[in-house]
């Protein structure tokens, strides 16, 4: 009898141990069972759209996700349409989005953009991204100095194409206009393709873009790079001066991109995506992708990203104020 009891105890203890040992690995673990949505705030062909589709392709190819991931374009109001969409998916573990600096800047500049990045769930920072100042290949401007001089001679006659008013390209424009006492027009195009068409067709004179958007057009001799925005020259553009080297002392900020989720994402869900991102950025395909597109890989975990967003927001708020833009938050 005693032996039996003992045995039962032992069995019970073993079972309890097994449950205790297993539960963190299985019971509480989240694994998606429905297709994931990856929300992008740009139209087809914009920098985010390309990044999102590349990320999906790399995840698919390496079979990192048990379910399909589908890119969903929610252009409109800069990032606001996409962020309100995420806001409406509160707690949903199957929806993710790609954020960029615009998601942080929109609420700073616009009263109506009420959703701040940390109101949602930052999942990971992925990259920093340099930018290029470009013109059409047959443009008369050989340097950024030429362009600024022309803008001085003919105020409001030259045009720049870009994203919305909170985009990095518009803030750089405001900074440059403020620093040089010039002014030129800014035409906003929600999709990257239209921005580029406007430059290629000669409808605008200058465009600040991400290298990933235009590598082929630069190689094909359709557009020319005047300057690059970043601390030091990119290996692929060794002959192109940075803004400072071109003689413009404008304090720039690095565009960042990352992944986020809707508000109130459960901790185990965040943990799952943290792991997914860690696997993603360890892929050789990721390294190759980052290199080809001249990005700087800068992965951060969810908790670190949340802290980063706070610092980043402060930094940009100062820059916006210096550029004379009206900051509402």
């Amino acid at each position: 009898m005693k032996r039996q009891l003992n045995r039962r105890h032992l069995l019970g203890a073993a079972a309890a141990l097994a449950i205790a040992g297993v539960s963190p690995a299985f019971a509480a673990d989240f694994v998606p069972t429905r297709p994931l949505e990856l929300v992008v705030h740009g139209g087809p062909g914009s920098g985010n759209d390309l990044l999102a589709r590349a990320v999906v392709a790399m995840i698919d190819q390496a079979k990192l996700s048990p379910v399909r991931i589908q890119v969903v374009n929610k252009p409109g109001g800069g990032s606001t349409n996409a962020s309100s969409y995420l806001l409406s998916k509160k707690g949903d573990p199957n929806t993710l989005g790609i954020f960029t600096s615009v998601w942080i800047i929109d609420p700073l500049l616009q009263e109506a953009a009420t959703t701040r990045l940390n109101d949602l769930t930052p999942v990971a920072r992925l990259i920093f991204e340099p930018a290029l100042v470009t013109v059409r290949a047959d443009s008369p401007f050989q340097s950024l100095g030429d362009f600024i001089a022309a803008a001085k001679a003919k105020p409001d006659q030259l045009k720049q194409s870009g994203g919305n008013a909170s985009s990095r390209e518009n803030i750089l424009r405001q900074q440059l206009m403020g620093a040089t006492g010039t002014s030129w027009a800014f035409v906003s195009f929600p999709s990257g393709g239209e921005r580029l068409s406007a430059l290629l067709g000669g409808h605008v004179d200058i465009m600040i873009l991400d290298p990933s958007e235009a590598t082929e057009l630069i190689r094909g001799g359709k557009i020319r790079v005047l300057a690059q925005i970043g601390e030091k020259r990119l290996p692929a553009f060794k002959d192109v001066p940075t803004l400072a080297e071109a003689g413009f002392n404008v304090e720039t900020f690095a565009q960042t991109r990352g992944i986020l989720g809707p508000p109130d994402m459960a901790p185990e869900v965040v943990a799952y995506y943290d792991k997914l991102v860690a696997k993603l950025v360890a892929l050789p395909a990721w390294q190759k992708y980052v290199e080809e597109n001249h990005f700087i890989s800068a992965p951060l975990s969810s908790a670190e990203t949340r802290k980063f967003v706070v610092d980043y927001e402060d930094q940009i708020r100062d820059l916006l104020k210096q550029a004379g833009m009206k900051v509402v938050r």
Partner: protein
Amino acid sequence: MLRYLRDPNILFGSGLSVLGLYIVQQSLGWVVYERDGPGPGFFPLIYGGAMLFFALWLTLKALRAGGVAAPRPEDELNASGRWEAIATLVALAASVPLMWAFGFIPGFGLVLFFIIRVVFARPTLNAAIVATCIAGALYLGFAELLQSPLPASAIWGF
């Protein structure tokens, strides 16, 4: 008064005038024009104004014509058909909460059963079979074959 209320031009015209006025009033509350170009109020102000103008024109023209003296005979003939059309629409509207509660097949199947049984006046058994088959076929086609999501029940989750 009734002669005016019977005139669709007056009903539609005054309804659209109110909508046009609302659009104009809303768009004036947004930025219409600023330094970097037109704002969100610019375009609605233009078409809202156009709506107001044409809707008022339509209304006034119909008022001057004196409305409709007697109900048109074709309206009388259609009265029962009209109720059936409205019943169909109401049943479809009821499908939204039904699908929310019971999922696609039971929720929408029930609505189809009602439409086939009442509006198309089929025998009960026949209507039940057809409704089930349609709901089932749609479920198979959309949710299973094409992986296009269908409403899932808030109670039992599928």
